[in-house]
């Protein structure tokens, strides 16, 4: 329990740091980007909306600590201002309509990569020097060396443009409305395939090698020898004895890589014009839409922190040593 409370305090602190960073950036950056943004957008806004944005970006003449308090209060009550590029939609609404796609893409890719990568790692470590152990790692490391977005471009070009097997942009066919029907789901799945595939390809090598190396250390333990001496079946030793103990670092890595996947999905989304928050973030950057940019950053951070917290709770369940200390 103490462990959980400590972690929770840590995540709250991390979130506070990102809020503060968000607060400070527009106020202390050279070149005054916010004024540029206002010059561009002011003519289409209502006076009270301008006032709200001025507060958000510190253009009102109040002392800084007052501004800070208002800012934190606004963030926790979900008032992140209105989007400028998608005026007059509030930032929270823009993000709400898109975060689902990012979670779908990132989540699918992450789960697939973790499951396959770890399985490959377990098998490779079990048969040291076997085909899996000697052929796969170099190939996967090579594939993993490609930038996410470049692999996405290549896949898009090859399977989307040249071969025409998969759709090349957006999350479902144009003209469709989201509904609970088979045709809609299959459309979503075909659109998801290529982006998810590229993320899986790039990240799977890391999982495999990480698992392989922990597995190798685990198989040298005495209890594995003991299990062998007892005459247990190979599969039982491999999965119930060795892999189960070697899983722990992977569980921690799962939480960390959630942030990495959301970040990586950002570039993949841009290439495939996939309507997630990453794609929106770029649109916001190009449209000098600072409220939306900051809102997306905070949302992604919050999602990552929550994911890590969940992983911590699972970890307590999995590793009794954490409960004791």
């Amino acid at each position: 329990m103490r462990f959980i409370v400590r972690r929770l305090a840590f995540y709250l602190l991390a979130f506070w740091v990102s809020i503060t960073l968000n607060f400070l950036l527009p106020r202390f950056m050279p070149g005054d980007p916010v004024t540029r943004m206002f010059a561009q957008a002011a003519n289409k806004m209502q006076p009270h909306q301008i006032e709200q944005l001025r507060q958000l970006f510190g253009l009102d003449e109040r002392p800084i600590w007052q501004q800070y308090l208002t800012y934190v209060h606004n963030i926790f009550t979900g008032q992140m201002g209105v989007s400028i590029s998608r005026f007059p939609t509030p930032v929270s609404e823009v993000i709400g309509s898109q975060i689902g796609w990012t979670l779908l893409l990132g989540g699918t890719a992450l789960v697939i990569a973790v499951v396959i990568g770890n399985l490959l790692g377990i098998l490779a470590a079990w048969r040291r020097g076997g085909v899996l152990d000697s052929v796969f790692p170099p190939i996967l490391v090579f594939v993993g060396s490609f930038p996410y977005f470049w692999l996405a471009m290549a896949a898009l070009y090859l399977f989307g443009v040249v071969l025409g097997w998969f759709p090349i942009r957006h999350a479902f066919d144009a003209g469709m409305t989201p509904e609970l029907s088979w045709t809609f789901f299959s459309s979503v799945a075909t659109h998801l395939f290529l982006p998810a595939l590229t993320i899986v390809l790039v990240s799977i090598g890391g999982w495999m090698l990480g698992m392989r190396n922990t597995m190798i250390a685990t198989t040298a333990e005495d209890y594995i020898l003991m299990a062998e001496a007892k005459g247990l079946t190979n599969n039982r030793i491999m999965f119930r004895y060795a892999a189960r103990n070697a899983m722990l670092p992977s569980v921690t890595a799962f939480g960390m890589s959630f942030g990495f996947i959301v970040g990586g999905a950002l570039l993949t989304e841009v290439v495939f014009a996939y309507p997630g928050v990453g794609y929106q973030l770029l649109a916001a950057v190009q449209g000098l839409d600072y409220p939306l940019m900051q809102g997306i950053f905070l949302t992604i951070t919050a999602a990552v922190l929550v994911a890590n917290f969940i992983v911590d709770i699972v970890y307590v369940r999995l590793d009794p040593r954490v409960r004791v200390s």
Partner: protein
Amino acid sequence: MSVTNPSDTVALATPDAPTSAPASIRRPRHGLIRGILGNRKAAFGAGVLLVFAVVALAAPLLAPGNPSLITAIASQPPSAEHLFGTTAKGQDVLALTMHGARTSLLVGFVVGAAATLVGLLVGVASAYFGRVIDDLLSLVTNVFLLIPGLPLLVILAAFLPPGIGTVVVVLIITGWAGSARVLRSQALSIRSKDFVAAAVVTGENPLRIMFREILPNMASIVMSTFLACVIFGIGAQAGLEFLGLGDASVVTWGTNLYWASNDGALFTGAWWAFVPSGLCIALVAFALAMVNYAVDEVTNPRLRTKKKGRTRA
């Protein structure tokens, strides 16, 4: 890979004659360097890096003039005259790729070195001083590790004035934390060794203990952290520039990809406009990763593939 080499590296590390045994006890680091040189992965990686370094240095000779200038008919596939074809604007892709290597490698190595240095200072200070300083530095490190890197990169780059300098600064800010964590845990284990305690007791100056006693004993992990940071630097730079957050007028692999994508190379079938730069990034990253694995293998004998292989059939 590396099925035959481990026995060589082991042989290299052992003294050649029994009579020289006392002298050879003090040669472990010599063995490390020779072990790395004798490793096939390392040799491959170093070779690839060398080729890229030479091309980058010689780019003004190999492809004289400004590579951004329009010198040919637009969107030509590779031919004898333009080995890598031309872009949608009519620039020579080969020249762009060779000149791109200059900035991309430079930024990658600068970011790698700076991020490792910051990580090293934080990590070693954290391990040496312990207590409050360790708690504080570890806290900062962990917060930076947790905040998602790419979105942070994007908003930092969006607020700062565009340019190569911004890209470097932003990448260092987001890249140091990972190395700090690795280096701290390594420094922590060395901190608990007796010779460090002895140095503390003899009243050596903390800076001297950190850099003359602790640091040399973690050379290999500093090296692999540095390589990982360079990989991060090159990849993240390309990502930022691909998003249009760098300086689009400077020729790098990232801006090449940005322009290729902006000019619709994917949809007009101009694969030659985006394949070379991406392949170069991948090759450099792969070569660095290979050197990194070689360092790991030489310093951690457990990871070497045993010749006998299957202990369990």
